[in-house]
């Protein structure tokens, strides 16, 4: 009886160790594939908008790594992007990372500006090839989808009274500002812009932000796992994370249309 018990235990242990080892191998495999994703993205960008793709290939190669030339190029790209958006009558967003401002504009008129309190930018955008970055942001980015903790349009449904006896005059609307304001905008070129309300907020808001962030991370993990299962390098999304005062973050989100445009100056 005792002998059989002793025999059973190592078997269980082997299963446990094998499961652990398998998990570890999966984890290493997943980590390796994920680690490869940024360089893959970089190669993709280079392939689509790299120097060899742009016209005027007779330029001296050294020009592309010259800081003075790249600074001018970035400025030109930023202006081009803003002019292109100004041609429409719609509201658009301008993120000036250099000046730490996030603003809204309509047809070239700046209608609202907010100071960026904190920012965190993907390394690929921060320390990548400036020529590539300026080419990437030369045209405005289009928002393809967004996720937020607040509603874009705080629509309230009111049923019409059947007759005058049911009619109640409007009461004062509830304008109390209790909703935490955090949102993520996904752009057509794969860049993700995270706008969070600034951190000196109440604990409830911090919890909301934690769950919002967790939900987004889980969503990304799921798509990465799916890619890894198909032996594909998961998609990498360069990001710009900024924190704004709550009121400004709300104004920006409510004003920008669902398929709105964004220009970025790094």
């Amino acid at each position, binding site marked *: 009886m005792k002998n059989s018990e002793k025999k059973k235990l190592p078997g269980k242990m082997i299963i446990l160790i094998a499961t652990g080892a398998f998990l570890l191998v999966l984890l290493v495999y997943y980590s390796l594939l994920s680690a490869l994703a940024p360089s893959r993205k970089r190669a993709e960008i280079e392939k689509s908008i790299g120097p060899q793709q742009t016209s005027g290939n007779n330029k*001296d190669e050294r020009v592309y*790594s010259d800081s003075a030339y790249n600074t001018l190029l970035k400025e030109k790209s930023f202006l081009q992007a803003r002019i292109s958006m100004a041609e429409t009558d719609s509201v658009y967003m301008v993120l000036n990372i250099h000046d730490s401002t996030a603003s809204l504009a309509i047809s070239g008129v700046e209608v609202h500006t907010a100071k960026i309190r904190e920012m965190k930018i993907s390394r690929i955008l921060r*320390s990548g090839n400036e020529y590539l970055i300026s080419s990437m942001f030369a045209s405005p980015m289009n928002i393809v989808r967004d996720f937020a903790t607040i509603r874009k349009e705080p629509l309230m449904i009111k049923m019409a009274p059947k007759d005058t006896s049911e009619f109640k005059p409007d009461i004062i609307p509830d304008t109390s500002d209790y909703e935490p304001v955090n949102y993520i905008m996904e752009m057509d070129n794969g860049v993700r812009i995270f706008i969070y309300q600034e951190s000196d907020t109440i604990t409830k808001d911090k919890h909301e932000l934690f769950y919002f962030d967790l939900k987004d991370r889980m969503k990304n993990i799921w798509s990465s796992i799916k890619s890894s299962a198909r032996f594909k390098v998961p998609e*990498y999304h360069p990001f710009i994370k900024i924190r704004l005062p709550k009121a400004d973050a709300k104004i920006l989100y409510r004003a920008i249309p669902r398929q709105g445009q964004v220009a970025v100056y790094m």
Partner: protein
Amino acid sequence: MEEDKIKSSGMQPEDFQSQEKDIKPLPENITGRIKSLYLKARENKRLYKTLQISSVTLISIFCLLFVFLFMLYIVPGLQELTSGGKTRFTADQELKKDTNYKKLTQLLVKDIQRLSKKYSSYTPGQSYVIINTTDNRFFLYRNKKLIREGFCSSGSYTMLKTEGEKRWIFRTPKGKYWIQGKITSPVWRRPDWAFVEEGLPIPSKDDPSRWEYGVLGDYALSIGDGYLIHGTLYKRFLGMPVTHGCVRLNDEDLEAIYNTLNIGSKVYIF
């Protein structure tokens, strides 16, 4: 030395010894107890199995949690570390002397000047008004300078539904508009929703009950599609989203805007 210690503590040597006995064997007692507990647990097969299962479950949960957290937080961090490859930037003096380089940069500078001029030309030199519908505030500009700001009321984002399929959404449109008409002593022609909202039957288009006097203030400025900038009787609601889509102002602000803006002046709503 030890005797001195005992004296200073004011204890009898026997007391000290008994205390020392109490302290020193304690770890042995604990290990002994654990051992005896373990033996007892081993004897009690059910308890042993329960303990075994619970410890394996705990370890598994811990491992899964680790894997989960690793994927959630460590892997994205790892991606940031590996996305490296800092590009080297040069300030090559030879390149700066190169005529082609000079031409290129001069061309860029010219382009930037041209584009800057074009972009700044979008801001109207004449008067315009900016309306912030989230904060319900307005900003009046003349010659690109802010001359007046204050509270206003904009669309309430209410959807009025009837039992039938009819519905209206009371929102102020966003974007660029311009003043299409200026009216003094405006009269409000009540649309269908104004009757539906109060539970009244909808009258015919030319019914006199549709006309209401003195509710829009002294002036109204039309921005198209039936939307107006006008006055209000409900001044306590200024700064709140309460309207059916129009922009309401108090009497003084409305007069200032009426006198500053001309037909064709831009209205930027966001």
